[in-house]
């Protein structure tokens, strides 16, 4: 065996104990730690790319599981923002008593219009109402045979922009009902409420679906990581033998989880973009029919970042739980 004098003094000499591991200075430790993280991140990614098919499969599964609730939630919030415009269409129909003359009706309309919660009032006379009814009911002949017009005066109230909540509209309805000459007030808002209820239901369903699928993703990542841990059992033993801490042993697997999660989120993002692109045409023609602002749901940059963050977090979490559970059982013997 050949030995140079230099190496002898370096390895064998006990003279330079100053650089023993416990005494390495803080900056060196930090850079070493940082470099180790970079190496681990790269190694873990390289290991995934070394087995492209199984990695791509895992990414696809995670991507599909994430894309489903994300697309649905983008669609639901798009629908919600459209329906917010419809909300402002809430109206009150005020049916007046039969025996009022036109002067009293106009005075009443004026009083109502003066209320601060009211934006405008439109009066519909019995004659106008009858004409309108005839034109869309098809019972015109039958009605024309009646002696007198059975329809009352009608006032349509559009509430002010600042008085659109259900309580405010309820208050207004009660105040108007109490006026002399008013027979009945009908709040034309039920369909908006129904829509809101359906929207809330939709959001909950998406949340429930999302939670279930996120759990599924956790399990997928956990199981994949478990197999990785098993396949690297010998290595873990050696690392523990030469003084690797749990954190050190855990690190490459956490990065593996992170890459699975981030890759899955990227796939999910691509799928969501595709789905929304595919739905764009039908959605805008639907929006046109409802005379509402064009609905162009999209994930946006923020949404994409959130999706990546979520995927990465799921990956880390799945890896953390699995590795922590398995690491304790892998000890050098």
């Amino acid at each position, binding site marked *: 065996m050949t*030995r140079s004098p*230099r190496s002898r003094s370096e390895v064998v000499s*006990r003279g330079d104990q100053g650089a023993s591991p416990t005494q390495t200075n803080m900056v*060196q430790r930090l850079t070493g730690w940082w470099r180790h993280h970079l190496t681990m991140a790269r190694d873990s990614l390289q290991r995934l790319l070394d087995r492209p098919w199984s990695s791509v499969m895992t990414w696809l599964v995670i991507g599909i599981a994430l894309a489903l609730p994300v697309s649905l939630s983008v669609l639901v919030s798009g629908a919600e923002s459209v329906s917010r415009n419809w909300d402002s269409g809430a109206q009150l129909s005020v049916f007046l008593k039969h025996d009022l003359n036109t002067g009293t009706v106009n005075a009443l309309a004026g009083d109502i219009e003066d209320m601060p919660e009211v934006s405008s009032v439109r009066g519909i006379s019995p004659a106008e109402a009858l004409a309108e009814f005839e034109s869309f009911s098809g019972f015109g002949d039958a009605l024309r045979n009646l002696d007198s017009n059975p329809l009352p005066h009608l006032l349509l109230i559009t509430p002010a922009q600042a008085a659109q909540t259900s309580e405010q509209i309820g208050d207004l309805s009660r105040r108007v009902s109490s006026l002399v000459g008013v027979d009945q007030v009908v709040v034309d808002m039920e369909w908006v409420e129904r829509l809101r209820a359906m929207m809330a239901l939709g959001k909950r369903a998406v949340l429930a679906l999302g939670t279930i699928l996120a759990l599924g993703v956790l399990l997928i990542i956990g199981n994949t990581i478990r197999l990785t841990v098993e396949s690297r059992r*010998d290595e873990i033993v050696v690392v523990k033998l*030469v003084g690797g801490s749990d954190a050190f042993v855990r690190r490459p697997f956490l990065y593996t989880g992170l890459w699975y999660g981030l890759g899955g989120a990227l796939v999910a993002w691509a799928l969501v973009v595709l789905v929304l692109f595919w739905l764009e045409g039908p959605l805008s023609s639907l929006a046109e029919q409802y005379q509402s602002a064009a609905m162009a749901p999209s994930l946006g940059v923020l949404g994409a970042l959130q999706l990546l963050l979520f995927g990465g977090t799921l990956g880390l979490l799945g890896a953390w739980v699995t590795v922590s559970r398995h690491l304790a059982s892998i000890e*050098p013997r």
Partner: protein
Amino acid sequence: MIRFDRVSKRYPGGYDALREVGFSIESNELVFLTGHSGAGKSTLLKLIMMMERPSRGQVIVNNRSLKDMSRRRIPQHRREIGVVFQNHQLLFDRSVFDNVALPLAIAGYPSRDIGRRVRAALDKVGLLSREKHMPITLSGGEQQRVGIARAVVNKPRVLLADEPTGNLDPALSAEIMHLFEQFNQVGVTVLIASHDLALISQLHYRIITLSEGRLLVGGVD
């Protein structure tokens, strides 16, 4: 440096691998640990490495009783001890360099220090030219020397070896033992388990002999 205080180890299942073993090893000593197969040599080394804990008695390393050492402290404890195994325990998917660098990476050394120290350690065991090879391409003796380089790269004050010459022919065995002597000469405390009596009795160091878990000869006081 290493003291065993009436240490017994009973494995789950009831087998007494060590019974009331007591001895001490001063720093800078080189001691051989011998005894028939199953005498408890590996068990004794595992207690020092905290791969096992004693059932009774206590083990003291570097003035620290291992009894009160928490699980979290074990990695730090292991970093202060170099260890060589009969079956090398190398990572076969990493190069010779990466294998030797492992303890330094764990301790968080900067990479230029790692390079310098790894090459120094490989030079010391005569494998500098093999740093880029994979362990599988090396002979048994060379693999064992990689294991030794890994054990000393961190400059531990204690070096343990469990049957380091187990699979080697006499000439290679003598060479490996000579390496351990050199580490000892510069102040490393060395404890080598070996049943190769022919070899170790030539070397004139203290020999601790175990038989069926009891210490026969070689304990001080």
